[in-house]
């Protein structure tokens, strides 16, 4: 009955009227999204204007590409892009494969209690807030009282002030990120592995496969779709390195390597009130992210048949 209703215009209208409740259920969220998410997307036109708060978004005079040119020509352009890319590619290289390894490992453990304890322990750091995490990083790396310089000096490595060392910034960011999220990020892979039919393993054993061979021939191929989906998503936010953690770890000594697009944009926009300039940087950033996402998604559709949309 419903299929027939959908076919002709009059019945479609009838069907909408009978199901008005479904639209009512969406109404609050739609109103919120229009006001606070879609309206700002329209507000992005201030990137092409000389925004004056008194004259409003529409009333401000057009400025063309002035603010984009200013960003592309400023010395902060290369600086922020390079820093952002270094941190994000380094993060991707470390935090993408490690959860897969962890999941493969977890899948090989048969001591149930130990496995459970192992999982809960590795998930736990995920729930530490960014502020507390950064506070811990600064305390643990402190050259006078931190435990990490102490441990390293026992091993004969003198580190000096790591938080003040611009060259160490990306490594500090990435490896603390691994510590905090590797367990949590492995959950999806563990779920995918637990869905594997045990008969596959039995068949492989009959054929005389050892554990390494079973991982290579069964586990990893089964994880590929999950890997591809997560990889596309990660690529879509390459220029979107988390503001929150970088901003808190920044200081005057490491700023040369820690000023990324989002922190620079925040300082320009809300600290020195250069709204249009900052909106232009933000728009540039979002467009690049979006294009990368579409590209990677398209490529993946071609080669692996897995895609987001």
């Amino acid at each position: 009955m419903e299929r027939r209703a959908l076919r002709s215009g009059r019945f479609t209208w009838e069907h909408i009227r009978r199901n008005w409740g479904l639209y009512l259920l969406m109404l609050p969220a739609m109103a919120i999204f229009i006001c606070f998410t879609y309206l700002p997307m329209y507000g992005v036109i201030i990137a092409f204007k000389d925004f004056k708060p008194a004259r409003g978004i529409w009333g401000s005079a057009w400025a063309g590409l002035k603010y984009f040119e200013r960003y592309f020509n400023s010395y902060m352009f290369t600086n922020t892009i390079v820093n952002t890319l270094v941190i994000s590619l380094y993060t991707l290289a470390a935090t993408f494969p490690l959860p897969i390894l962890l999941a493969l490992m977890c899948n090989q453990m048969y001591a149930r209690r130990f496995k459970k304890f192992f999982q809960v322990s590795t998930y736990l750091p995920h729930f530490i807030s960014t502020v507390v995490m950064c506070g811990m990083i600064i305390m643990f790396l402190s050259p006078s009282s931190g435990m990490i310089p102490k441990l390293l000096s026992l091993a004969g490595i003198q580190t000096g002030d790591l938080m003040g060392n611009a060259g160490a910034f990306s490594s500090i960011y990435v490896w603390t990120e691994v510590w905090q999220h590797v367990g949590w990020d492995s959950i999806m892979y563990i779920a995918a592995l637990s869905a594997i039919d045990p008969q596959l393993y039995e068949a492989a054993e009959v054929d005389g496969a050892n554990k390494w061979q079973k991982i290579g021939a069964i586990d990893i191929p089964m994880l590929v779709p999950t890997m591809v989906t997560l990889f596309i998503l990660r690529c879509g936010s390459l220029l979107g390195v988390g503001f929150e953690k970088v901003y808190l770890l920044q200081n005057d000594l490491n700023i040369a390597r820690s000023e990324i697009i989002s922190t620079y944009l925040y300082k320009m926009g809300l600290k020195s009130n250069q709204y249009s300039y900052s909106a232009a940087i933000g728009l540039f950033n979002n467009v690049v992210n979006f294009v990368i996402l579409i590209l990677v998604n398209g490529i993946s559709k071609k080669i692996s048949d897995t895609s987001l949309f």
Partner: protein
Amino acid sequence: MSTAAAKHGNHIRKTSADRTFDIIIYTVAALMTLIALYPMYFIVIASISDPNLVARGDVLLWPKRFSLEGYQYLFSMGNLWRGYGNTVLYTLAGTLIMLAVNIPVAYSLSRKDLVGRGFFTFFFIFPMFFGGGLIPTFIILNNTFNMVDTFRVMVLPFSVISYYIVVARTFFQTSLPGELWDAAQIDGCGNLRYFFQVVLPLSKAILAVIALWAAVGHWNSYFNAMIYLRSPEKYPLQLVMRNILINNEMAASAMTGSAAADINRKANLIKYGAIVVSSLPIMTMYPFVQKYFNQGVMIGALKG
């Protein structure tokens, strides 16, 4: 699954290569557990030890010269507790609003007979991949809605989360049999009554997942508060924590009359205790509700 595990463990005779494999796996896992837990354990023992010994690096494995001095100072810090109260408020209100706006959308989108389903799905998913950005959002919230430095800015504007909608929609699609709605219709049950009296009671698992995610998100976030709040008496816990941990701003009230060296010592003392106090609710809750958290991630992993 347990029978498969048993087979792996006993039934097949282990080769020596497989035994080496097991030894490697369990050693690495034990090491990783240690690395994951030790920093958190250290914070706890440092918070109840003599701060001078902590600063010298003498406290490593267990508390030394037990002292609750840090916690005593913490209890006298008005701004920390005000922040705590604010965060509880923001978390409760914010979580309720998130449930109230995201779950109904997810249900509507899960209905295959929704006319305009493609359009609405796009409408709710697109912001996952593109947005106006920080500055336009700030201008709209500040100039159009006058929301800066209000209670509602902390709970309302960012309450629609595309990811939650996707996860809940997948849940409804996979766990509610289509015949149920057909039967309800025959009994003359409308969409709204069906949603509230049939769908919601059957969906406690997904409600728990979204509520927990939303609550943890609110509890741990500082970004929106930093951008949109001005008056310190509205600050949530995480902003107060930022002042204590990162900006090293100590509550002068707790410190009056102390010598400079002493202030420094107490500043460090307070940090450990503050971390414990601010993280305790989530950390202690997690092991009991982890089932729900993990379930949610797995629902999200299904393609819908």
